[in-house]
């Protein structure tokens, strides 16, 4: 069964159409890049899958069920901003994740935090921006989820941190799960992607296996992305 299916999915904000008749079928066990320039609808699509938005038209199915509190229990979501209560200590945040998510692997999170020498007794707001992003990623990837939704996980961090984030994703995700990574920084993650989706003005202009795409267009996904979205 497909992990995520979108049928004629449309989302409008007033007169602005963020997504238009999106049809998708994403299989588990794949790492898929959701690429497109700013405002192309990437975050809207992820929010719809996570049921933070309600579609204007169309339907989404997560492992055969419509988005609901039950599907959220199996989705690990990393938004594109700081989202954790910043007055809490890192250890308290782990308690919080353990309390709400049955699939949270605390030992794995503690190990990753220890590897980075992150003090778990520090309050979240006292950490540097880069460390906060790493803590959020670690907590998200420490869940043994069926679907991972990572919204711009490498935007706004230095190249060394990008490498760490990509390594963390690759070495910690549940291999039977679907990983959907939204980004406009294709070059940094191209090597790990099984498939790529190009979103342009709310519509899917490409959904293809990355190896097939490279063979077909005889260029890297990043080069092709730059060509498709050339200004």
């Amino acid at each position: 069964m497909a992990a995520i299916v979108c049928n004629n999915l449309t989302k409008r904000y007033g007169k602005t159409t963020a997504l238009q008749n999106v049809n998708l079928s994403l299989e588990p066990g794949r790492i898929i890049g959701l690429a497109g320039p700013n405002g192309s609808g990437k975050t809207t699509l992820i929010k719809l899958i996570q049921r933070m938005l309600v579609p204007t038209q169309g339907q989404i199915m997560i492992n055969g069920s419509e988005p609901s509190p039950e599907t959220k229990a199996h989705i690990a979501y990393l938004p594109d901003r700081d989202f954790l209560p910043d007055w809490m200590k890192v250890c308290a945040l782990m308690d919080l994740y353990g309390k709400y998510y049955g699939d949270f692997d605390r030992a794995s999170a503690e190990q990753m935090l220890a590897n980075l020498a992150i003090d778990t007794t520090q309050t979240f707001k006292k950490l540097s921006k880069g460390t906060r992003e790493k803590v959020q990623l670690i907590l998200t990837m420490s869940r043994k989820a069926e679907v991972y939704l990572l919204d711009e996980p490498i935007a706004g961090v230095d190249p060394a941190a990008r490498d760490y984030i990509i390594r963390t994703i690759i070495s910690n995700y549940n291999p039977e799960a679907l990983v959907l990574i939204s980004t406009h920084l294709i070059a940094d993650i191209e090597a790990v992607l099984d498939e790529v989706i190009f979103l342009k003005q709310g519509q899917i202009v490409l959904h293809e296996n990355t190896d097939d795409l490279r063979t077909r267009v005889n260029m890297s996904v990043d080069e092709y992305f730059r060509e498709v979205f050339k200004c």
Partner: protein
Amino acid sequence: MLGKLIGYEMKAYSRIMVPIFIAVAALSVIIGLGLRFIPEWVGGNVLFALTLILYIGLLVAIAVMTTILGINRYYGNLLGREGYFMFSLPVKTSTMMLAKTIGALIWTVLGAIVGGASIALISVIGFNTKDYAEIINAFKMLLTEIKPYTGYFILWVIVIIMAVIQLIVQVYAAVSIGSQWSGHRLIGSILVYIGFEIIEAIIATIIRAIHPLANWIERVMTGTSWGTTPNYGAPILILVLILVEIVIFWVIAWYFTDRKLNLE
């Protein structure tokens, strides 16, 4: 899951409110001891005046902080940046709203209890044993007086609690509509709240204009009053009106928080 969410609310409030409660208790003891052992304090002593001002300031802080936290636990935690975490939890929106409402109610009641208890503490420490015995006797007499009206008294307590809930839910409804704007969300929320008040005033005016209905309400409200038989009609009618408002504001808040969610 509701219990876990309420626990989270308690933790979020307690880090601000508990230190204020402790400070109020400490000042109550200081004021009480001052009244008991330093009689010259009361006669215009600057230190006593400052202590009293600080104490009153802390009582005001309890009210202000309970209100601010009550709004912020919805506006910031649910509709702001932290909403990305909250709406990722495997929980229904209505359950989150219920946890917020219960949390706000608990801390409002706790604030009132701490305020009352601090005055009692000042009295117990500050007055001598004879005065204290007189206060206890007066209190016992009051309890004996109102004993026949226990049910009536409890009904009014319920009305007050429901009125607090109505106020909380009305704020949630205003904030959830105000958050539909992409900017100036707080100002938008305040304007919506004022809008609710205006609509309520208009409805009240319309009801007063419908004479049979206005007359019926007046008869209910001014029925046999406190004395021989308590007038249960007044609190029951007020309770029904409050419940109607709670339902309306709850539906509004739920609709804009669940179906029209617009996170910061």
